[in-house]
């Protein structure tokens, strides 16, 4: 997000939060504070991240309620310290069973608030807190979706395109690159970052379309095939430093394939297919497959050559399968 964009989101959040809190007080909503906190949690990130945070918060709150019902209701005779032990232990166990990554902290808040601060009124507290949390998450998601909406999908795609373009540039200078290891390590980090943000993208698209749609599938494929291009290119760089391609590898195939790869990736990022590059990649793949020795269980000396051939085949195949990025026009409309 650009600096002006970030500032606009901060102002949006402040402007939303300012009337929400007095409205809760004015309407005398029981535990209305948690409505405001629910809104805040959602607005602190983009739409996809907000959906995930909201899901964690609601499930964590429900599990917290269940733990409090057991610790304070069913086992009501326990001292507060024993009740806390039971409540906090149960909340974590329930949270892990539900696959939560952070929602168990909210559940712990429910247990601590009920048992330590609300005494006999624990049911009023946990019930209304749950209701207000759900309302807050709903309000937050509505605001996040309709007012100056920050979409995970567009941010993800921009990052992915940047990653692919840097990969294309690395392909271009691969044979002679002085420090490819560091460049590949940086690309790997960015790939891992994209992978970590995929659930946000899926959550956002599911919210909008009711299920993960073709945008999620395309993102997964871009990551999968882009990742293969990166690994194959990295291995290839190391192998070519060890040995030049053997005589049975069609002459000029390595620079041709790398050049096609760069052309193809640059076109894909611009929303085009580069059919000439695809056709040539296919020809390279066929030529290399036909040139492979009969028995790949070759003696030790030939292994490097076979690994070079294997990585070239992988590279060509992944470049052919890599999907197009959405057109900028489509991206601006993404998810509307």
């Amino acid at each position, binding site marked *: 997000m650009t600096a002006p964009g970030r500032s606009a989101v901060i102002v949006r959040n402040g402007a939303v939060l300012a009337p929400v*809190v007095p409205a809760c007080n004015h309407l005398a909503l029981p535990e209305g504070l948690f409505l405001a906190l629910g809104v805040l949690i959602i607005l602190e990130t983009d739409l996809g991240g907000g959906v995930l945070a909201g899901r964690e918060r609601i499930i964590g709150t429900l599990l917290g309620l269940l733990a409090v019902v057991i610790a304070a209701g069913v086992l009501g005779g326990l001292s507060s310290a024993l009740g806390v032990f039971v409540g906090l*232990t149960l909340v974590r166990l329930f949270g892990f069973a539900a*696959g939560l990554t952070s929602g168990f902290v909210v559940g*712990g808040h429910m247990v*601590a608030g009920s048992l*330590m601060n609300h005494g006999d009124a624990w049911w009023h507290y946990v019930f209304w807190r749950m209701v207000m949390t759900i309302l807050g998450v709903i309000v937050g998601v509505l605001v996040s979706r309709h007012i100056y909406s920050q979409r995970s999908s567009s941010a993800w795609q921009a990052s992915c395109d940047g990653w692919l373009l840097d990969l294309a540039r690395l392909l271009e200078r691969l044979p002679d690159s002085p420090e490819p290891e560091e460049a590949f390590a940086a690309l790997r980090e960015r790939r891992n970052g994209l992978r970590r943000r995929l659930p946000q993208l899926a959550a956002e698209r599911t919210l909008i379309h009711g299920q993960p749609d073709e945008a999620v599938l395309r993102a997964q494929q871009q990551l*999968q095939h882009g990742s293969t291009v990166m690994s194959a290119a990295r*291995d290839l760089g190391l192998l070519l430093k060890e040995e030049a391609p053997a005589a049975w590898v069609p002459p000029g195939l390595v620079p041709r394939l790398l050049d096609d790869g760069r052309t193809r990736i640059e076109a894909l990022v611009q929303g085009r297919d580069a059919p000439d590059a695809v056709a040539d990649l296919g020809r390279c793949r066929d030529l290399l497959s036909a040139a492979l020795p009969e028995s790949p269980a070759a003696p030790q000396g030939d292994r490097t050559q076979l*690994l070079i051939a*294997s990585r070239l085949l992988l590279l060509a195949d992944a470049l052919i399968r890599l999907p197009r990025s959405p057109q900028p026009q489509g991206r601006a409309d993404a998810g509307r």
Partner: protein
Amino acid sequence: MLPRPPSPQQIRNALQVGFAGFLAAGIHAAAGPDVNAIDGFYVVYGAARSLLPTPEASREAAWARIVGTVFGGAVVVLLTQALHNWLAIGVGYVLIQLLGRRLGLSPATLMNAVIMTVLILAVPAHERMGGMYVVDRTGWHLLGLLLGMAVERLFWFRSPLQRLEDSERGLLGRIDALLAGTSQDGAEELISAYGAHCAVRAAVLRSPQAQGLANEGMQQRHEALEQALRHAVAMVRVPAVLRSIDAEACREALVRLRSLAAAP
């Protein structure tokens, strides 16, 4: 999504949190009747916020909580000296975000800071307490967080280096299963597992145990593991006719790794 049974490690974590909360509630009770009930909530919630998946994560979260609470509390308390109406919440939020970003605070710290805007300005009693509310909340929270981190160290503690060894064993098991043809892992799963392993390694490198990884043997061991993994991932991806080449290279890397691990 269907519930899944917690792992033994998760069960231990749950018991640790429960015990930390038990201690926190006990300390609050021992402090006597002069202490407010809400302080009991702060200290127990501090314990509940601790004991995250790794000690490093617990420490970072605790730091973000304390710094965020103090920073956000200070900004809001100062703001309320000048502004008392509903606008204060919006202005407080914007001020905290802008100042916090300028100071380079992490997103987690900022989140804790902006929560203070709501907590102070949405509850009149908190606003009346002003700075004392911030001090009281921070102090009891800190106690709870420290209790949680102490319990984390006392029971079933695994040092970063031990966790790295556990992680390496797990990764080797997955690669062995792949070579044996009994694995369901695809390239993505293997890459993800290696990413998690590298995160543990990064934690070791940031810890006082970093020198344990500094010697050449450990470096070679890491390189051998990475090589084995690269060939394992390639095995899943390459055409079947070339798979045996990567399988062979993967086995060799594993043999090298195991001989390095066995070396004194």
